[in-house]
């Protein structure tokens, strides 16, 4: 069954010359600035039990895509359909620095819609997975970045989402932790969940994704089986490296200009979250 469907999805941001233009937009709804499409006319669908790697150079729209997948921000045009609860794990994983790790487990669990009982059940698993010892009762601000990533990852994965989006979150962990996470994700996949894995580590993507989506300047350049896409992406990276500087600049400039052009207008953006028990729509 399809877990995630994107139909002609675009996400537009407006680059304002002056802050007052933004105010005018809020008040009068008139857009007064340069349009910038972080994502443009994206359509794809992903079946359950897939691990989809998302690759692309900086600024290609990977993080915007992760936000759409986690239903954190709505699309400008098009429809995003998510079947089930999704969770986003990023490096800055929304932990409260003033509170202890243990408090953060409850806080985040509650915010993700769990009951107190459910949280009590998963807490031991989180503690075991994060494996940060006595620091769990210290404020998060005393943690190293690795410890923060461990805790954030442990919480999100034990909340048991149907769709898991990992945005570079593994890049700060050490080798052993990365292995542990990858194992956990495989287990996740085997239970029929969908994982989106955003990473600059091409070896990790190759090792463990079943499909890869390559984004370039806000559009899907390729989407298919890992080997094929990664071979193309590698070629592209080499080509990028070899090209004379001026030619690259021209290429980038042209692509950037295209990115300001209007997307194909489709329906007003909406995100539809469906689950087996209830069908609720959040716009």
């Amino acid at each position, binding site marked *: 069954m399809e877990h995630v469907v994107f139909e002609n999805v675009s996400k537009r*941001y407006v680059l304002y010359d002056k802050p007052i233009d*933004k*105010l005018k937009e*809020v008040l009068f709804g008139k857009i007064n600035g340069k349009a910038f499409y972080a994502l443009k006319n994206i359509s794809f669908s992903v079946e359950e039990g897939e691990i989809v790697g998302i690759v692309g150079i900086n600024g290609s729209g990977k993080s915007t895509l992760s*936000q759409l997948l*986690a*239903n*954190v*921000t*709505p699309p400008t045009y098009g429809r995003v359909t998510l079947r089930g609860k999704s*969770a*986003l*794990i*990023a490096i*800055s*994983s*929304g932990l*409260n620095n*003033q*509170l202890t790790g243990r*408090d953060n487990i*409850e*806080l985040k669990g*509650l*915010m*993700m819609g769990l*009951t*107190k009982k459910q949280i009590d059940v998963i807490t031991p698993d989180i503690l075991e997975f994060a494996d940060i010892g006595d620091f769990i009762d210290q*404020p998060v601000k005393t943690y190293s970045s690795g410890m923060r990533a461990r805790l954030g990852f442990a919480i999100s994965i034990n909340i048991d989402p149907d769709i898991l989006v990992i945005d570079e979150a593994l890049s700060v962990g050490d080798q052993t932790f990365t292995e542990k996470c990858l194992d956990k994700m495989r287990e996740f996949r085997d239970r029929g969940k969908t994982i989106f894995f955003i990473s600059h580590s091409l070896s990790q993507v190759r090792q463990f994704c079943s499909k890869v989506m390559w984004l370039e300047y806000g559009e899907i350049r390729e989407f298919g089986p890992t080997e094929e896409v990664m071979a193309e992406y590698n070629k592209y990276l080499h080509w990028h490296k070899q090209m004379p500087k001026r030619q690259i600049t021209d290429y980038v400039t042209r692509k950037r200009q295209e990115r300001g052009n209007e997307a194909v207008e489709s329906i007003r953006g909406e995100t539809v*979250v469906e689950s087996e028990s209830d069908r609720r729509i*959040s*716009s």
Partner: protein
Amino acid sequence: MNAIQTVLKELKDHLYLIFRLSLYEMKSQYSMQYLGWFWEIMTPLLQIAVYWVVFGFGIRGGSPVDGIPFVLWLVSGLIAWFFVGSGIPGGTRSIYGRVALVSKMHFPLSTIPAYVILAQFYRHVAMIFLTVILAAAFGYLPGWHTLQLFYIVPAGVIFLYALSLLLSALATMIRDVQNVVTSSIRMLMYLTPIMWVPPDHELFRMLLMINPLVYIVEGYRSAIIGTGFLMEHVWYGVYFWSVVGLILFVGAAVHVRFRRYFIDYV
């Protein structure tokens, strides 16, 4: 009206969440301090002491207000101000100040002002309690009029939430709103008869009462001291609730209309 329903339903569905988050809100406020609760008591006490000296002795020469000792009159109004008046800037800041925490998940944003207000409410209840004791010490024992607390305290909470819902949405999109609110509150504190008694001038009092905070402050005095203000000003009560209704209506509409963009605005 739909927007109000949406917001109320969200609050109702997340009561437990609001309660727990308010406790964590308090906890994270005090985690940096060794004497958190001590400052909670100390800061208002110092403020009361200064106002008492300046307004009570300096300006009024220690004379009572309509027979009520000035310090009791001051404190019973001031606690309402500490909660509702000072709560407004906090409510305005509530959403954009916490968006980092919620930016990685789908979260009912209308609960944020609610739990931020609730976190302040516990302290407020303690203050009401202490003020009732203070009143008793001056010979104003609790009686039937004390039951008015069950009306005026929720009125203050609802007013504060409605206003916070509106201002937090505006401030998230236009940060200047925070500055406007901060300066307005500083003025409002003196435009509300908390520390001074308005002169007996009909038109002046009418103009003063445009400010709905006057209803809350005088309502607290009515409930704690028994001034009878609430019973004598039924029409002012109607005005107050109309203002609250209007603010809630606009606030809910703005919040629901724009919240999907809050994350993009931060």
